[in-house]
């Protein structure tokens, strides 16, 4: 494909696109306008009071703009179930269909088929639980320190993958059973949607915080959301990674 790769027309196309893109993004990347401090000033003074979270990023992520976070978890859900359905070769009917038998079979086969060494066994097997605990910490203390549901969930997912890699083929733990992970993910999604509705009966609105007037600290809702999102994300990503490991031939 030499001639098509180096054809003059091709290079011309590339140069032209790059030049136009450069011209278009230049004014924004080089903008000298001072960064606005409206939102920052408001949040610095009221963020802690409004949401109860010391971590202002968490306050925005799960408070002010929690609806975006819902959208993000939806994107993740669709990506996970779409990816699994596309790679499992069986169409959407099996997607998330948790073709339990099927995917589990793949998983076990593959992980046994994986070229394993003593090092992988020991390191991943022993490290797995520690990583899981770190993930839980990130999840539960996301309102105080950096971290949060999503980050915790990702770490939990890598813990799950570690444990899947580390365990011997026949002694798979319940976490690796994709059925359990799928259940956690589905239930997590249902709980997130229900949590978003929980403010409506009390008159706080969609995504309103039902605790905001009951005297309890509003931060509880952030902790709850963090936990659910973390579990859901961890289960979903873990499921996807295990399914992928299962496809390695």
């Amino acid at each position, binding site marked *: 494909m030499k001639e098509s790769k180096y054809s003059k027309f091709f290079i011309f196309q590339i140069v032209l696109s790059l030049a136009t893109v450069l011209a278009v993004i230049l004014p924004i990347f080089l903008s000298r306008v001072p960064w606005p401090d409206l939102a920052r000033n408001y949040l610095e003074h009221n963020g802690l009071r409004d949401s109860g979270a010391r971590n202002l*990023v*968490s306050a925005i992520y799960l408070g002010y703009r929690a609806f975006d976070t819902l959208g993000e978890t939806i994107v993740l859900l669709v990506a996970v179930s779409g990816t699994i359905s596309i790679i499992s070769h069986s169409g959407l009917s099996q997607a998330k269909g948790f073709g339990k038998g099927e995917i589990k079979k793949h998983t076990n086969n593959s992980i046994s088929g994986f070229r394993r060494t003593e090092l992988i066994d020991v390191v991943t097997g022993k490290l797995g639980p520690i990583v899981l605990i770190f993930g839980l910490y990130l999840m539960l203390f996301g309102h105080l320190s*950096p971290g949060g549901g999503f980050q915790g969930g*990702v*770490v939990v997912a890598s813990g799950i993958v570690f444990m899947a890699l580390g365990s011997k083929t026949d002694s798979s733990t319940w976490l690796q059973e994709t059925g359990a992970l799928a259940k956690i993910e589905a239930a997590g999604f249902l709980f997130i949607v229900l949590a978003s509705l929980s403010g409506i009966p009390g008159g706080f609105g969609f995504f309103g915080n039902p605790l905001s007037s009951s005297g309890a600290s509003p931060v509880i809702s952030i902790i709850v959301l963090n936990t659910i999102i973390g579990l859901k994300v961890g289960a979903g990503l873990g499921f996807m*990674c295990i399914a*992928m490991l299962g496809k*390695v031939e």
Partner: protein
Amino acid sequence: MTIIIMILLIVLSLYTLSSRDLLYGVIALSAFSMLSATLFYIFNAPDVAITEAAVGAGVSTVIFAWAIRSTERKDQE
């Protein structure tokens, strides 16, 4: 400091895109993610740094490694 990291990022991204072996590209991309996580930490964004490290260096590396193992490793260019 930040400028050095950014230059490193550029070098890594060029290496990612030009390496013949895609697996090296994945490793470089994962290093790219770790470096940008460092950058986020320097710029007072610890949350984003944790996410980038967990996602960029963790999950996406696993996915890329899977894709390359199940397709082919050499770039035929």
